[in-house]
């Protein structure tokens, strides 16, 4: 992903601030949001930065539903747009996530996970929104869910989120947690050329030939910005290739199948993981977010103690990277899934486990981090 690095300016940033650096590097020029802990720094930072970006727009909306609406509108008008929120706000956004998925509107939503259900633990970390990120909005829909474990990754994964959103015309959810968002680390600020930046394909055919939701080779139809001469209809109703509402079974099926296929065909591109010493591992830890940092130390300590331990860091949570997890479950005798919830991603691991290995979970829901020693105890 990263090209050879040139001389960089360094900065000491929060994970939340790094998200903004990543977004601007990816070409984001529109932010609409509503303040909520622990994601607020993203919004505050955007409020300062975007007026300096050419055509940059920052909006504080009346709630999270409106924030997502404005982001969708901006994206339809051709902008790379994002919002950020946390637990309760994420719940409010679900309606519009469904609309964005149905209308294939690219956007990035950063959800900084806090602890607990409802208002829960506003200033403590959690990872309880994993399944909600996949299935929070009603109905069958494709979605991409990413995560980041440290501050440099916040930059990288935000850029990746924008690239995926644009490439696959889909909302992309980046899940952070309070620890990652509020950790301050030294990073190299991104420079132009550091990352490959992808922008959505726009149609080149004459407007009267354009079909906004047509089947294409990749399953992703080109998308013109509103006002560019391609007048078409966008609706959250199931629609035909022209975008008009339809309830004809064959058209409904074709739409939903294409929407799934456009993601399913590119698992190799989308499913990002990091392998740490998994080649010879007999025990594997599968982790994401701040827990992956604890796991990294635990695995190193286990190695030092003579245990052949490995770590699989999931950067893509959905579509679930089965192709990386399944072989490890076959080759290892034990898989440990530590999470700051009652067991959400471990459900996916158990789902793809064909009984070859023991899947053990470490669940912590008291607003505290899972420590390296907690993980070490399970693997050593």
């Amino acid at each position, binding site marked *: 992903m990263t090209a050879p690095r040139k001389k960089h300016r360094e900065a000491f940033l929060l994970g939340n601030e790094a998200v903004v650096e990543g977004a601007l590097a990816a070409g984001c020029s*529109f932010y*609409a949001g509503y303040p909520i802990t622990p994601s607020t720094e993203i919004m505050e930072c955007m409020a300062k930065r975007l*007026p*300096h970006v050419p055509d*940059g*727009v920052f*909006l504080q*909306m*009346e*709630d999270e*539903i*409106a*924030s*997502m*609406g*404005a*982001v*969708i*509108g*901006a*994206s*339809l*008008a*051709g*902008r790379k*747009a994002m919002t950020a929120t946390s637990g309760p706000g994420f719940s409010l956004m679900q*309606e*519009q996530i469904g*609309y964005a998925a149905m209308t294939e509107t690219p956007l990035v939503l950063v959800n900084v996970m806090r602890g607990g259900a409802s208002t829960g633990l506003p200033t403590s970390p959690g990872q309880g929104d994993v399944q909600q990120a996949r299935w929070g909005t009603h109905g069958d829909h494709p979605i991409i869910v990413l995560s980041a474990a440290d501050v440099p990754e916040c930059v990288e994964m935000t850029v990746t989120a924008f690239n995926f959103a644009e490439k696959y015309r889909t909302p992309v959810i980046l899940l952070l947690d309070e620890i990652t968002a509020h950790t301050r680390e030294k990073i190299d600020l991104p420079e132009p050329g550091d990352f490959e930046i992808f922008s959505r394909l726009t149609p080149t055919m004459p407007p009267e030939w354009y079909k906004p939701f047509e089947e294409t080779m990749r399953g992703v139809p080109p998308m013109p*910005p*509103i*006002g*560019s*001469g391609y*007048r*078409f*209809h*966008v*609706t*959250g*109703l199931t629609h035909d290739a*022209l975008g*008009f*509402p339809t309830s004809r079974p064959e058209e409904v099926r074709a739409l939903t199948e294409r929407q799934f296929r456009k993601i399913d065909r590119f698992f190799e591109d989308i499913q990002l993981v990091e392998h740490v010493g998994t080649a010879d591992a007999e025990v594997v830890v599968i982790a994401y977010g701040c827990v992956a940092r604890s796991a990294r130390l635990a695995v190193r300590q286990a190695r030092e103690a003579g245990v052949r331990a490995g770590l699989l860091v999931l950067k893509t949570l959905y579509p679930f990277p089965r192709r990386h997890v399944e072989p490890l479950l076959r080759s290892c005798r034990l898989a440990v899934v530590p999470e700051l919830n009652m067991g959400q991603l471990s459900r996916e691991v158990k789902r793809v486990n064909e009984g070859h290995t023991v899947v053990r979970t470490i669940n912590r829901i008291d607003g505290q981090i899972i420590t390296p020693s907690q993980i070490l105890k399970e693997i050593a």
Partner: protein
Amino acid sequence: MAEITQLIHKYLRHNKKFPLVFCPGCGHGIVLGSLVRSVHALGLNKDDVVIVAGIGCSGRIAAYVDFNTVHTTHGRALTVATGIKMANPKLTVIAVMGDGDAFSIGGNHLIHAARRNIGVTALVLNNFIYGMTGGQCSSTTPEGAYSHTSPMGQLESAFDIVELTKAAGAAGVSRGTVYHVKELDALVADALSRPGFNLVEALTPCFTQYGRGNGFKSAVEMFRWLKDSCLPIERFEKLEDRTGKIPLGSFVRRDIPGLETRYAAMCEGVRRKKGGAA
């Protein structure tokens, strides 16, 4: 007169199924005509006009016209419209909503759109009822009126769309009806050509879901009721007994630049200051 219908046909999408999906006598088609005539009268390019609609019968209007059209979720039309307008202020953005859409589920968005004066025209088709879901009372159903969810008569009082929007700070607020079409045309055209947030409430009868349950014998009778009970604000104010009368016309015309204009000016100031400092 023939040019009226010919003109509208020019703006309709020929790959859509006609007639319109609305019930016989529904006023929504008349509002659609009014909208098209206003856009035409202002000489706007089809490519530069965006219709953002919500959910409900009014939401179905968008698909029929050959503009950029977005049919959003229930109550959220103004949020999407706000995003579009801020992203590309050159576009003429029109949010078409029903009464339930704009003032019940989307009430919060509406008052905030009015407060921030985003340069969007809101066209609220007020038929006093949830038509598409089969006739439940809405936030504009008059007190005492019957609906499937107020079978003993509506206990709650109704929103006055004009007063509410006015109080929220909108640049322009007006009310018309589908009986008084020429006046409605003028109100819509005026709203479209003014800066800031401009709302037009169009009273449009729903005979199927509202009229039948409330003593009207036909859609025509509902049009007669509009004709008899609505009158220009100037005449309304001179009335001694205003019971059952509804004032029409333009209620507020404030010169407030749209948020998009104020935002652009702010950004220009910021960049100039930065340029000067460097």
